[in-house]
């Protein structure tokens, strides 16, 4: 069965530095990979998605890479700010019996220290 692994430990980073979060997966070839942010007590919120034939995608301070050979996505937040502190979820997005199925990883908790 498909498996998605994210850094299980929380990631602490100094304000202004670049945060890099890792998402590895096995037994699956997703058409897309999505990243979401989840704040405590809230639902996940979509940030970015990247297609299988794209190497890199950017949105403001966010950058996502997608290596289908390594089966890995990296999520970068440049010039990190305390307001970036949250849990970040990666999700595999593919076709299941003709319908979209999005499967989430366990998330990485990011803490940006002022």
């Amino acid at each position, binding site marked *: 069965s498909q498996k998605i692994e994210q850094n299980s430990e929380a990631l602490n980073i100094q304000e202004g530095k670049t945060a890099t979060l890792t998402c590895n997966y096995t037994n699956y070839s997703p058409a897309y990979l999505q990243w979401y942010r989840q704040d405590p007590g809230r639902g996940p919120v979509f940030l970015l998605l990247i297609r299988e034939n794209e190497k890199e995608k950017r949105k403001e301070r966010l950058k996502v890479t997608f290596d289908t050979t390594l089966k890995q996505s990296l999520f970068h937040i440049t010039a990190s700010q305390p307001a970036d502190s949250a849990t970040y979820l990666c999700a595999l997005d593919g*076709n299941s019996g003709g319908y979209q199925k999005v499967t989430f990883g366990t998330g990485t908790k990011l803490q940006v220290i002022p």
Partner: protein
Amino acid sequence: DTAVSQTPKYLVTQMGNDKSIKCEQNLGHDTMYWYKQDSKKFLKIMFSYNNKELIINETVPNRFSPKSPDKAHLNLHINSLELGDSAVYFCASSPRSGIVGNTIYFGEGSWLTVV
């Protein structure tokens, strides 16, 4: 206006009871979901509906019965609640299920505690 709204936000109930969680989306989306997030924060899909029809059922115990009266609503009824059912249940929606790459829009979650 809230895009995906679910009620109640908090629910504390005893083992063996039956409870329902309601969900509505005003985004005009065709597809709705129920996800469960356990204490380890693992967000797992339970059900997916496309235009009121069940399309994904992730081997959830049959004590859980989703119902979609129309494509804007997806309710979740749980019979004979067990301690292990304690979790946060998220309702979500997306534009069209037949095409990958759709963004999932989540509600704020319903915190269920079974005592």
